[in-house]
């Protein structure tokens, strides 16, 4: 049962194509499981359609239509076709395209006590990585310069905002300072996407920052 959803502003930015790759991936992953956000995402795309209609048309090249008509009978290029990977109970389909459906099969890297990560290395601004956190461990207190999205894939955690379980997303920005802690005896695996580096607060955070390079 998903109980934490995206902010409207996040779904609007996704519909507008104004999100980092990692954040779009995370949003699409949650949408895969969440009817409620799907509905709002659809509405945000309607806005795009409306705005498209209202644009002053641009001049096309003279042979624009004829060049395209000439291509209609050609088959779509097959070379770019990638077989779709289906998701699993823990990995929604959009994410499974990149990492497969088995979280335990990933080459996790340690980042200190009770914390492992897998970086999706998507490039661009910000970061997109999976974190694997042992029970009782907390991520250092930090604030965000930009937006930070988190989606839970396994287990749960709690922070200043509430309790987050599988499928839930935390949608935070620079107004929020938080310290998530894994609140059951099971590990927690989550996908985190940011559009700017995190800023850790407190002495532990400052010590941890260069070390874990978040």
């Amino acid at each position, binding site marked *: 049962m998903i109980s934490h959803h995206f*902010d*409207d*502003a996040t779904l*609007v*930015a996704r*519909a*507008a*194509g*104004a*999100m*980092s*790759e990692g954040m779009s991936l995370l949003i*699409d992953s949650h*949408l*895969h499981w969440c009817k409620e956000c*799907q509905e709002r995402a*659809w*509405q*945000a*795309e*309607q*806005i*795009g*359609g*409306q*705005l*498209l*209609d*209202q*644009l*002053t*048309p*641009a*001049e*096309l*090249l003279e042979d*624009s*239509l004829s*060049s*395209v*008509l000439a*291509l*209609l009978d050609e088959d*779509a290029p097959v070379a*770019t076709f*990638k077989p*779709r990977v289906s998701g699993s109970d823990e990995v929604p*389909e*959009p994410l499974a*395209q*990149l990492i497969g459906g088995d979280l335990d099969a990933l080459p996790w890297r340690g980042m200190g006590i009770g914390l492992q990560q897998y970086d999706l290395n998507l490039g*661009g601004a910000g970061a997109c990585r999976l974190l694997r956190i042992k029970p009782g461990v907390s991520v250092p207190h930090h604030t965000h*310069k*930009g*937006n930070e999205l988190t989606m839970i894939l396994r287990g749960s955690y709690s922070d200043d905002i509430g309790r987050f379980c599988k499928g839930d997303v935390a949608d935070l*920005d*620079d*107004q929020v300072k938080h310290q998530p802690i894994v609140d059951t005896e099971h590990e927690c695996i989550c996908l985190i996407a940011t*559009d*700017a580096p995190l800023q850790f607060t407190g002495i532990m955070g400052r010590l941890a920052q260069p070390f874990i390079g978040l």
Partner: protein
Amino acid sequence: MTEQQPEGVDVNAAAAIEDEAKKRERDGWSDLLATLAESRSKSDFALLYKHFAPRVKAYIIRFGMPPAAAEELTQESMLAVWRKAHMYTRGKASASTWIFTLARNLCIDRLRREKAVEYELPEEEVDPDQRHYGEQAILEDRMSKAFSQLPEAQAQVLYLSYYEGKSHSEISEQLGIPLGSVKSRMRLAFAKLKSYWGEQDQ
């Protein structure tokens, strides 16, 4: 739009045909796109092209593409309309929305200079009550009214976002306002536009 000649007109059908004509006029583009997968009609495609391609090109230019690349991407987007027509669900989105989404995705792929992985959101089960069916026309009338009534500050963040593909942080820098203000303006604008959906259910 071309008027289709009804076959074997009879008196009883006349009213229905009139209704149909109104409906086509109101939301003809979506109907045309919906039949494209079956009909594979190049003349229908050409009609869609003439209407949408110049708008798609305008959108892509605003999204930050140089004109030559924008023309190429426009052609690519419209080719995708032809090739993916079978994926268009009439009740789910208007033609404009669907074509906007295709063009947007191509822009993003191009800007990231890599093929994005293709996945689709799960197919919605067809609603028994066809919730979205035919909503678009009414919606879109109301929405364009809604746009013109948005306070300038709210309209501005929508435009920067949709038309220029700027992220929340980029908008916050450009306007010199905090990130939180960008997001709250966006939320307010979205809420206002959504209230137009709400009126549907009255």
